[in-house]
Structures are given as structure tokens and as C-alpha cells.
């Protein structure tokens, strides 16, 4: 009988009000976070980062024939090298079907009939993915950091903590840049497979090819091209920005003098500026996403 009464008295429902923008963004974000808990992406990513960071920290010295905890500079050098491959790849896998997948299943069309602006949806997804990435990085790198701090000598603790804070912070920002790149591609294509293909190509260029080309240019044209131009070329690639930031945060004496990133180390560019550049990347990509999405008819 209660159902019948309910049907007969719909007037009580007329007082519904659409939620505020922040509430809508948070609702979408929580849904995205829960999705990645359910599909175990979060645990997989956290587990991979944890295993890799433990291996680098506690087994990294095995190649030199000893089994001791590596020095902090070596640990961060190893972690940055691995993270720069894994974090963007993970972010791509997290985001490539964010829009094209919802479009294929018909839920994007449905969502847009709700009191939800397109920028709410983009920001909600970004925030949800930020929760996922932050949790994975904190679990993956944070547990290793705690272990190293507990086992390490007193005078190295501060450097370790600072280094891991920068690694986690810049790692999250780097991942979010690739998440937004994933959104841009996901908004522009009509098939999930195509989105993944384009993004893997982008990853290949930005993570692998770009730095190699830059290093070649540095060696072959060092006399011709200005140092400022090289700095600029490094900073416009978020993966190099990540490497440079962590190089500055954890200076390594053993770093190859030929590395293009040495230029950044010598340029006097500050870490806050680099974080600012990451934020700039995020802002620009977020605007591009919203612009593309707003221009589309579903």
C-alpha cells in the first residue's frame, strides 16, 4: 500500500533542487573512485608501485654484488626512472575510455540530461582519478618511504622524507597531466581502441622518443642552440619536467654529465616554478578538454 500511496502523492517530490556544482563534482568523483576500487585498478597500481619501490630500495645494490640498502640518491634515481614509465602508462589506462566508453554505452547521453554541466563531468572525473592516483602513489611509495625511514640512519631521514614527498607529489601531477591527455583523446575519437592506440603513441613519443631526440640534439648542436631553448624544450614535456623536478629535489652526484637534465640542474630554476609549470599544464589541458566537450553534440 505504501507504494500506491507514494504514486498517488507525487507533489511531495516537487521540492527537489539540483545540487550545487561542487556537490555534483564530488558525486562524479566518488563514483569514479569506487569504480576503480571495484575493478581493482587501484590495488594493481599500488601493488606495482610498492613492489618496484621495494625492489629499487632494497635490492638495487645487488647489481654491484652487495646486498645493502641503496643510498637515497640512487633510490630516487631508480624510482624516478621507473615512475616516469609506469605512471603515465597507468594514467592512460585509467582515462582512455572515460568519455568514449561512456559514449559507446549510452551513459554519456544520459548523464548530460541530468542537471550536470559538461565541465562538472570533466572536473568530477579528474578529481575521482586524482583520488585513485594519489591513493596508489601514497600506498606504493609511502609504505617504502616509511620502511626506509624506520630502517635508515637518523641524518638521512629528512632527505628521504623530502625526496619521497616530491616524488609522490610530482608523480601525482605527472599522472594527472596524462589523465587529461587521455580525456582529450577520449573526447575526440569514436572508438575505445582508437583512443588507446593514440594515447600509447603519445606515451611512446613523450616518454621514450622525446628525451632521446633532445639528448641527441644536445650532444650534436650544443654550440649552436641556446641553453635556454634546451631548458624550454625540457620543460614543455611533462615527463622531463618530472625528471628534472626530482633531480633538483634529490641531487645525484653520479648523474651522467651528458644528460640533458643536467642543464636544468645548472639553470638555477626553482622547484616551486616546476610545480607551477605542472599546474599550468593541468589548467591548460583542463580548459582544452572543456572546450572540446562543449563544442560537441552528443
Amino acid at each position: 500500500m505504501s507504494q500506491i500511496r507514494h504514486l498517488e502523492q507525487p507533489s511531495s517530490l516537487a521540492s527537489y533542487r539540483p545540487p550545487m556544482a561542487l556537490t555534483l563534482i564530488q558525486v562524479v568523483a566518488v563514483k569514479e573512485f569506487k569504480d576503480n576500487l571495484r575493478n581493482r585498478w587501484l590495488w594493481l597500481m599500488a601493488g606495482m608501485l610498492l613492489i618496484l619501490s621495494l625492489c629499487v630500495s632494497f635490492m638495487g645494490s645487488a647489481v654491484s654484488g652487495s646486498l645493502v640498502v641503496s643510498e637515497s640518491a640512487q633510490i630516487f634515481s631508480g624510482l624516478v626512472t621507473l615512475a616516469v614509465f609506469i605512471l603515465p602508462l597507468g594514467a592512460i589506462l585509467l582515462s582512455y575510455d572515460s568519455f568514449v566508453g561512456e559514449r559507446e554505452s549510452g551513459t554519456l547521453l544520459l548523464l548530460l540530461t541530468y542537471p550536470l554541466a559538461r565541465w562538472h563531468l570533466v572536473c568530477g572525473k579528474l578529481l575521482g582519478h586524482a583520488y585513485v592516483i594519489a591513493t596508489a602513489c601514497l600506498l606504493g611509495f609511502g609504505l617504502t618511504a616509511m620502511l626506509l625511514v624506520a630502517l635508515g640512519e637518523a641524518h638521512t631521514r629528512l632527505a628521504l622524507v623530502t625526496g619521497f614527498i616530491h616524488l609522490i607529489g610530482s608523480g601525482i601531477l605527472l599522472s594527472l597531466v596524462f589523465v587529461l591527455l587521455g580525456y582529450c583523446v577520449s573526447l575526440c575519437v569514436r572508438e575505445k581502441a582508437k583512443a588507446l592506440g593514440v594515447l600509447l603513441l603519445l606515451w611512446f613519443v613523450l616518454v621514450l622518443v622525446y628525451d632521446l631526440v633532445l639528448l641527441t640534439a644536445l650532444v650534436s648542436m650544443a654550440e649552436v642552440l641556446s641553453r635556454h631553448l634546451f631548458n624550454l624544450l625540457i620543460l614543455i614535456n611533462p615527463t622531463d619536467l618530472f625528471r628534472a623536478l626530482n633531480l633538483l629535489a634529490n641531487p645525484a652526484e653520479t648523474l651522467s654529465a651528458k644528460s640533458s637534465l643536467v642543464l636544468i640542474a645548472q639553470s638555477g630554476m626553482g622547484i616551486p616554478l616546476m610545480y607551477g609549470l605542472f599546474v599550468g599544464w593541468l589548467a591548460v589541458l583542463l580548459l582544452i578538454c572543456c572546450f572540446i566537450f562543449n563544442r560537441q553534440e552528443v
Partner: protein
Amino acid sequence: MSHFTNNAINPQALTLMTNQANAQGQVAVKAVGLSKRYAEFEAVKNLNFEVFTGQTLALLGHNGAGKSTLIKMILGLVSPSAGQLFVQGQEVQAKRVNASLSLGYLPENVSFYDNMTAHELLSYFAKLKGVPPVRVSLLLEEFGLMAARDKRLRTFSKGMRQRLGLAQAVLADPKVLLLDEPTVGLDPLASAFLYQKMAQLKAQGCAIIISTHELGLVQDQMDSALILGQGQMLASGDLHSLRAATSLPSLIELHHVTPLQYQQLLSQALFASLLDPSVADRVCLRVPDALKAKVIQQLQGFKIHEFSVVPPSLQDIFHFYMASLYPHGMPSSAAFGSAKNVKSELVA
């Protein structure tokens, strides 16, 4: 032929609609000269129609006729190229934040989030509309999904998904409900359930616009129909006015006809011309409305007292308009294009 070449609303239908407006209430949806063009392709051409509260409008047409584009325009997802569209008296503006909670929508072939449970899905959509959580449980109960509330949607049957979809559409007690092919792939019981729910919503004053190809099902539920062909309105109005507009013959089926009576019927030119040769196992006459009274009277003369009169169905009317639009048979949908195809090309 003017009823399907004329883009303006059928005056007969307009009169009927006005009468219904007085009887049933306010205009829920109104389109005035509504058009949508994608590059060279005109998906919707100069549509004029009104839907009233407590009324069901069946949106009929071949694939690519412009039904989905029209629904998207009502939802504010696609902006009209020309004309105006009003929902609950407010002009719809494309890409707006749909602050109005007065619309409910069930898309065609939507496959919700398979990893979610029914309760999680409805709760998610309820939060987006600012609907209190208690409503979710009520709807799950009302739509017979309480037992499956914690099951993942990937385990749901098509019928359960559609029930969940309809529950989602009515979350915020909409004043206008848009259903795009809601009964495709459903068994008769599931379809009946959906139509029963629609009847309840209609009784509460909800205006329902349903796009469907299942004409037999919608015929008894609709108050009026809008028949689209190649983006333009071919006809509109209730079943009665559509029958009148098409002048299609009624089917009179004669029961218990003896061979002698049959021979007598055939001997008369009138009956011989009305006999439907396509029906082999029964004696059926195709009788235009103008002759109906005369035929029935003459049947008495042959001592045929048992017969049934079946007026033209919505399907007959629909086929009539499609045959008028495509006298040489229906082309493939690719031949005349659809908004989806054109948009894909534009994106590419």
C-alpha cells in the same frame, strides 16, 4: 496528399489537440517551426506540435526519420538550427545545465555501468538530481527490483535493465518523460509492465513522448501520434483523426458464411470488389468508411449477422504514409542518411 506533404501542423489535429488541452491541462512540450540541419543533411524539418500534460505522444517514423534528433532537441542536447522548442513553458536552450528536473529520459539501448548494483546506480543518479536516498528504495520496490538491489548489473536481464532504466527516468518525478525505443528486445510481459507503469505516470499528469517501432503495442496507450518521414511531419493527431485523414478501409470479417452465401456475395459487383483476396482462410472485406453503413445493411440481406469490423490499425496508417513517401519501396537507411551518420562524417 496534403496531409503528408504539408509541413505545418494538420489543422484537424490542431483542433483536436486544443480540445485535449482544455480537457487535459497545460502544454508540456511545444515545438514551433523546429528544424535541425547537419551540413547538407536536414535531420528535422519545420516541425510544429504540442504535447499536453497527462498525454502520451507516440513518435513514429522509419530509421533516420529524425525521432532521436527530436528527442535530443527536447532534452537540450542538440541545438535547433531554426524554430523554437518549449518544455513546461520554458524555451529549451542547447547545452544548458539542465537545471529543470522536469525531464526524465530513457535512452535507446543504454547499457548502464555493469560493475554497479541496481541500488548503487539509482543512488548515483539520485544524487545527481538531488533526490533523497529514500526514493531509491521506493523505486526499487515499485519496479520489482528489490530482490536484485545488490546484484551487479552485468547479471541483469534485458527486462530488468529496462525496468531499472525506467526507474532512473522517473527518479525526480518528471513532468515530461521521453522514452526512446523502450520495448526493443523485451518479452511481452516486460513490455506490458513498462506500459502499465507508463499508464500510471500518465494518470499522475506526466506527459510521455515515446519513440517506438512497436506500433501494435503503442496503439492502445497513445493519445496521439506524430509520424515523421525524412525529418518532416507526415501526419499527426489521435488514432481517430489519423484514420479519417488516411481514409483507409476498415476490415469487415464475416463469420459462419456458408458456400451459398459466399457465392451470392461474389455475384454482386460491390462485394466482389471489396473482397480481400490476401486473406485465404477467412472471408474479409476491405470497406472504405463511406461504404461501411451500406455494406453492413446489405449483409443483413444475405442473412449474414455475425461479422466484426476492424478499423485500420496504427500499423496500417504508418504503412500508408511510408508507402506515400516511398512509392517504389523503402530505400536502405544509408541512402537517405541519418543524423548519426552525418555527424560521424563531420567528426571524421
